[in-house]
């Protein structure tokens, strides 16, 4: 069953074409990396699938149902969206921000049950935030903020997780941690669509990559097939200096977590 089945998605803003006839498929258990240079239309495509922006043309099915037929809460329960450089407007505590992820399940009046609290606690634990749960959001570092917002998205327990550059503000170790969490979400039967700039992370973690360039799909497939000389030159205008071995060696993830790193406030 395809969780996302989009075809012919086009978008123009103020007469300016942003996306042109994009198709995109995402299955349960799959992690699809959306890559491409700045301005290729990655974030716009993500916002269309999140229901934030309406496409000018095209069809978008979520679990076989057109997105615009879903009610706001139905959509919010199945798709969680992690915005690029998201923020919080009030100095609310970490736990309360993560709790906002339960809103689609609660509606306007139902109170959080013990099950909701268990899910919130689990999201805090998985993102290594339990020790920070009472801290006001503005007092956190950039990396901690990014993890709080990811925990908020995980607390939705969505089928589909859309993440716009989720590792942009993170150090090496927390990058791996966040990617591991997204991967785990897919291994648990969910699906993730992730905008990434780091092709090494993309190649290592994603089942497939979709390369966008000037609002069109340049290539889509397994990382080994999408990351090639022709595509890199056409999309990014770069050529990989061969250091011996295959091209994919240049995009190998050459570090891993030791498990020895302590996060601040954990002791």
């Amino acid at each position, binding site marked *: 069953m395809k969780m996302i089945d989009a075809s012919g998605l086009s978008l123009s803003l103020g007469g300016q074409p942003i996306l042109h006839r994009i198709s995109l498929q995402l299955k349960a258990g799959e992690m699809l990396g959306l890559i491409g240079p700045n301005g290729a239309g990655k974030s716009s495509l993500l916002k269309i699938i999140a229901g*934030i922006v309406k496409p000018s043309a095209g069809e978008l099915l979520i679990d076989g149902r057109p997105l615009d037929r879903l009610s706001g809460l139905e959509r919010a329960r199945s798709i969680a969206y992690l915005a690029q450089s998201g923020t919080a407007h*009030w*100095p609310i505590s970490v736990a309360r921000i993560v709790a906002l992820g339960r809103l689609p399940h609660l509606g*306007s009046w139902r109170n959080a049950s013990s099950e909701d609290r268990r899910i919130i606690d689990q999201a805090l634990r998985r993102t290594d935030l339990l020790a920070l749960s009472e801290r006001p959001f503005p007092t956190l570092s950039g990396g901690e903020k990014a993890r709080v917002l990811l925990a908020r998205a995980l607390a939705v327990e969505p089928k589909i997780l859309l993440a716009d550059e989720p590792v942009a503000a993170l150090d090496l170790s927390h990058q791996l941690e966040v990617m591991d969490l997204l991967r785990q979400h897919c291994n648990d039967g969910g699906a993730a669509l992730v905008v990434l700039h780091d092709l090494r992370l993309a190649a290592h973690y994603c089942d497939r990559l979709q390369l966008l360039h000037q609002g069109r799909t340049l290539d889509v497939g397994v990382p080994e097939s999408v990351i090639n000389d022709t595509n890199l030159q056409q999309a990014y205008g770069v050529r990989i200096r061969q250091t011996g071995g295959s091209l994919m060696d240049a995009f190998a993830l050459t570090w891993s977590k030791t498990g020895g790193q302590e996060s601040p406030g954990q002791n």
Partner: protein
Amino acid sequence: MTLSTSGGKADYQGRLIALMAAALACLFVLSLFIGSNPIPVLTAALDAAGDTQSVIALILTEVRLPRALIALVAGATLGVCGASMQGLLQNPLASPGLVGSASGAALGASLALYSGVAASFWLALPAGGMIGSLLATLLVYTLAGRAAGTATLILAGVAVNSIALSLISLLINLAPSPYAVREIVLWMLGSLANHSMGDFWILLPGSLLGWMLLAGTGRSLDALTLGEETAHTLGVNLDRLRWRIFFAVALAVGSAVSITGAIGFIGLVTPHLLRPLVGFQPGRLLPVSALGGAILLLCADIGVRLFPAGTEIKVGVLTSLVGAPFFLFLIVKSRRWQI
């Protein structure tokens, strides 16, 4: 009505509300004991209850009771509307008057006073205020456009407010008699004195309707903490939420301003004062701000009656005198969050 992460905090919120409600009840009773002529309030209450038409009973039921009731309802309206506007616009400087409701109501009421209709027909003043409030809010909404950003809305609000204020100045300028000028200016100062139970009954329905509309918006305002796009992906229909809050504020603030005149700073300062007590969560802030606004306005109105001056100070003057410097203090204090 709001989301809590642990039972302890829900209890805390409940205790806070109970404490504030108790304080409000005390202030309400205290307010009945204070007036220009000291009367034996308990005897008066017994007289009123026993249908004895004594003068002191009339002072209690026709002068002091409506005054306290209007302070309670108008204060609660200003507080809860301020809190919801600040939550909607994710901006702590937003006030209930921002969307034009207060200045629109002032313009409508000034027109009623200017034309003299208000003098011959007592309903004309509140009706003018109410219509002005709704029209000004509608104008802000139309000017800003359907998918307007927060900044556009604020700018449209500022523009409509300036237009309304300049038209009021024009009315004062062109006023046919010094009497009309005096009426408009005194009304603009904002006062809870000299109101009847009739005024209270005019104030009540719009206020209640506005409160009910706002009561269901807490969760959506919580979601807006994460910005408009993320709130949308949490199931918030921003268009509908905006309409609902604008309409509620126009109704409630329009009703309040039509009766009391312009009372500044309650709507701005109340949510500020209380926000740290509810963990800065916009939804939890709503009921607390309603209570807080009522408490502040009752305090201010008790204050003006105790003030040793020949002429009674208007309550709107007092709230501005105290509110403006206090607001400055809050801005300086809140700078520590903007590291």
